[in-house]
């Protein structure tokens, strides 16, 4: 084939050939969740300069739902309720991982570089790429908004995009997709997904390969003080075969204990809305 013809064909190729991308470890392993369900907790404080706190939480829940509406993927984003946890990363000193927190840092309390508006961190096993924890931090020194009027940095738009990152999706090269990098101020089109985003989640988490291991034991209000916390059963164990059976037993035991607690704290979470 002549080179100009080849070039022309390349130009005419549909974009999906280099569309959605999966985030990888340093040595190129794709990162992903092994669970059917990923539970997220929203810090109860919400954005300090947004009076419509309920509207903000509803917008975030709508972002979860947007991803959950994809029928060709088994992955489910679960609203775990509210939390007063303010730490990201390894969320508490007892080294319980897997508490995925979405948090607005208070004005003047942003712990990172001052010019950063939003930051998503992902904790994973570098040997396997399995995600253990992910947190979204938003800087309250910048103005966010919900709803269709006076749109600033739209909460639902931003969170839907960031949630894509928390499940292992990198930025897409498709301009129309939710996972495209750029978003003009006031943009709301990323509230919904485009075919490229759907291709991404379905490729990584195809419905036909559902592991059916949805662990909802840490749903409900989770307190930063261990004394009043409900349960934190989604542990991350280093990948050694000898530990695997123990972690399963531990998970089952904690899950059993948490059923009752989860209901109680779930009620608290609902009440506090």
């Amino acid at each position, binding site marked *: 084939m002549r080179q100009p013809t080849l070039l022309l064909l390349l130009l005419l190729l549909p974009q999906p050939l280099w569309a959605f991308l999966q985030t990888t470890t340093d040595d190129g392993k794709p990162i992903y969740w092994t669970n059917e369900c990923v539970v997220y907790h929203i810090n109860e404080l919400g954005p300090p300069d947004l009076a419509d706190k309920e509207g903000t939480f509803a917008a975030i829940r709508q972002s979860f739902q947007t991803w959950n509406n994809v029928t060709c993927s088994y992955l489910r984003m679960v609203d775990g309720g509210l939390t007063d946890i303010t*730490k*990201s990363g390894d969320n508490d000193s007892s080294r319980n991982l897997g508490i995925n927190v979405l948090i607005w840092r208070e004005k003047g309390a942003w712990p990172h*570089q001052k*010019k950063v508006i939003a930051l*998503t961190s992902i904790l994973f096993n570098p040997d396997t790429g399995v995600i253990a924890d992910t947190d979204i931090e938003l800087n309250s020194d910048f103005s966010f908004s919900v709803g269709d009027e006076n749109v600033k940095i739209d909460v639902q738009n931003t969170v839907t995009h960031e949630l894509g990152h928390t499940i292992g999706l990198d930025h897409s090269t498709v301009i129309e997709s939710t996972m495209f990098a750029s*978003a*003009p101020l006031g943009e709301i089109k990323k509230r919904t997904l485009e075919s490229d985003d759907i291709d991404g989640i379905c490729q990584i988490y195809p419905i036909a390969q559902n592991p059916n291991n949805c662990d909802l034991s840490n749903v409900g209000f989770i307190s930063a003080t261990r004394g009043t916390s409900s349960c934190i059963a989604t542990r991350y164990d280093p990948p050694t075969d000898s530990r695997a059976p123990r972690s399963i037993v531990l998970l089952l035991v904690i899950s059993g204990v948490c059923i009752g607690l989860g209901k109680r704290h779930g009620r608290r979470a609902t009440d506090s809305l």
Partner: protein
Amino acid sequence: MRRTLTAWLTLAVLFSTAPAEATIVLQLSDATLARDADAIVHGRVVSKSAAWHTTTRRIYTTYQIEALQFVKSPTISTQRPRTLAVRVLGGTVGHYGMRVAGTTRMSVGDEVVLFLERVRGEWMVLGMSQGKFEVYRDAKTNTRWVRARRTGLTLATRDKSGRLMYTHAKPRPDRRFDAFLQQIRNHLKAKR
């Protein structure tokens, strides 16, 4: 000639939309970097180590930077330290890896120009990866150049009314090292 042109065009088509990641940060010009930095150091990475931060429970990688020269002396001290510890979010500790898009990554031996800010008593790179410039030598001409890599960032800029607009971080052309430093010094003089 035609074949070379075709090859370059093909490459341009393939790589014209490079992937990036999730951190949203204000876009900083050289002048803003110079103005807002608490220190600007030209140095070399002599060591790096990752550890859990005891209070924030995050993994940070600490780079020890041997200062070859200060373009802007640390504003917190009258003394010019020989080394600076620069802390970057993310890294690998045992079976845990933490990834935050847009953070600076360096290797031991790298020669860099870093625009640093002081955050809660620690040196951090200003504007995430925007504040790091790699220094490399062109073997043919024996000249030094600086290269900016702003991968992993979604940049936000303000329009005339102060509203934020997001934009994809575009690659910046490499610049001659001496000219770059002089430009930074000019920005610093203009600031005064």
